[in-house]
């Protein structure tokens, strides 16, 4: 069937694309644009490893049709670092050893980023709640939550 056109901003760059209607946002990002940071885990919206931000809000890119993202700003893990500097969340994940096999990491980062955009002072409970939609099969949850908490703490210190 015919491709349909799509205007989208990904990590600050504008794209005019033509995609098959049944292409998911995740497939488009990974296979068409070679942005392979977002991972396909379960493919049915359960595991959270495909999480990207759509207009600042975390969504499952495996459940989102590329066409549904038309007109929106999408941020993937590749867009987190700014001007060659890691996002504080990325640095904190490294500092806290919050990465084991790494498969869930990009999703965790984007979920955490979405939370902190909405609430920069999120507490431990909110962080846990918010990341509860992400599965880490290495079970490194404690380190991940600590990494996010530490970003919240250091942003408080800066004020």
């Amino acid at each position, binding site marked *: 069937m015919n491709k*349909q056109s799509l205007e989208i901003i990904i990590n600050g760059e504008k794209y005019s694309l033509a995609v098959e209607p049944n292409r998911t946002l995740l497939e488009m990002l990974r296979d068409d644009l070679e942005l392979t940071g977002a991972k396909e885990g379960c493919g049915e919206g359960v595991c959270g490893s495909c999480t990207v931000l759509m207009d600042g809000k*975390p969504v499952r890119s495996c459940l989102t049709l590329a066409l549904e993202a038309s007109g929106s700003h999408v941020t993937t893990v590749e867009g987190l670092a700014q001007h060659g500097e890691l996002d504080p969340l990325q640095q904190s994940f490294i500092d806290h050893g919050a990465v084991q096999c790494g498969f869930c990491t990009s999703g965790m980062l984007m979920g955490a980023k979405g939370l902190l955009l909405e609430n920069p002072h999120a507490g431990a409970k909110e962080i846990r709640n918010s990341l509860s939609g992400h599965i880490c099969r290495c079970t490194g949850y404690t380190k991940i939550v600590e990494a996010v908490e530490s970003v919240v703490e250091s942003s408080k210190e800066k004020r």
Partner: protein
Amino acid sequence: MKKFKYLIPKTLDEAVSLHQSHGGSAMYVAGGTDVIVKITSGKLAPDYLISLKHIDGQSQLELNTETGVFCIGGLVTHRTLEMSSVIRLQYPIIHDAVQRIGSTQIRNVATIGGNLVNAVPSADGAIPLIALDARLNIYGSTGERSVDLIHFFQGPGQTVLDRGEIVTKIIVPKQSKRTGAAYQKFGRRAAMELPLIGVGVLIILEEGSNRCAKARIALGVAAPTPIRTLSAERYLVGREITEDTLNEAGKLAAEESRVRDSVRGLAWYRREMVAVLVQRMGMKCLQRIKESEGR
């Protein structure tokens, strides 16, 4: 994934006429968190997918301060409901339910209309709305009609919707002054979980006493569709609301439920939990009435 054409109507009429012109091979999609999974897995195979997301005026929450009627657009996301201060303060039973549906990423896109139309026996979104006596506005080729939510469900995955009809609004009638309502989703995990049982209780007290003027007890996963347990509700009306009377109502509700064994839990356990949770939610109703009177 199966191939299909993706259509983006801008109005309800356009959506309905697109659906009509493509007959049985067309499907509506809103948030897509159920539909896309079902297409990927081959359970659904539409040739045309009609997105409802770009239709104006369907994703608002409106509390009419004169009439007290609360109106929820069919395309309102669970996240919007979760974050709404009107819901947290005045309809906490809805907040109880929506904050534990799926995950943040799911709630950001999944819509309340979609939750209802899916008609799964466990629909967390439906139980609080049934307890609140909500009605649905439905739009189709013959115009608009209205259905009580409790009569909307016909079986697992089955509703009274005719082909091509769209749930446009959920109407929650004015609440009496001394209303308390609470919902508990009972499952094993906090995220991405379907409940073993879902219990919603609403209690309205008479002025100046703890006597029950009206009661609603709605259950999810207790039958093929969401249900109300009428004998338990009738038992409470006119009685003082106490731990004991709620205990009795819980037993009656458990007897009335039509729970069954499934992979998530056994019927006997579900029945016991209905009794426990009806009482617990009833007490929470009392507490919430007290809190609202203290404000």
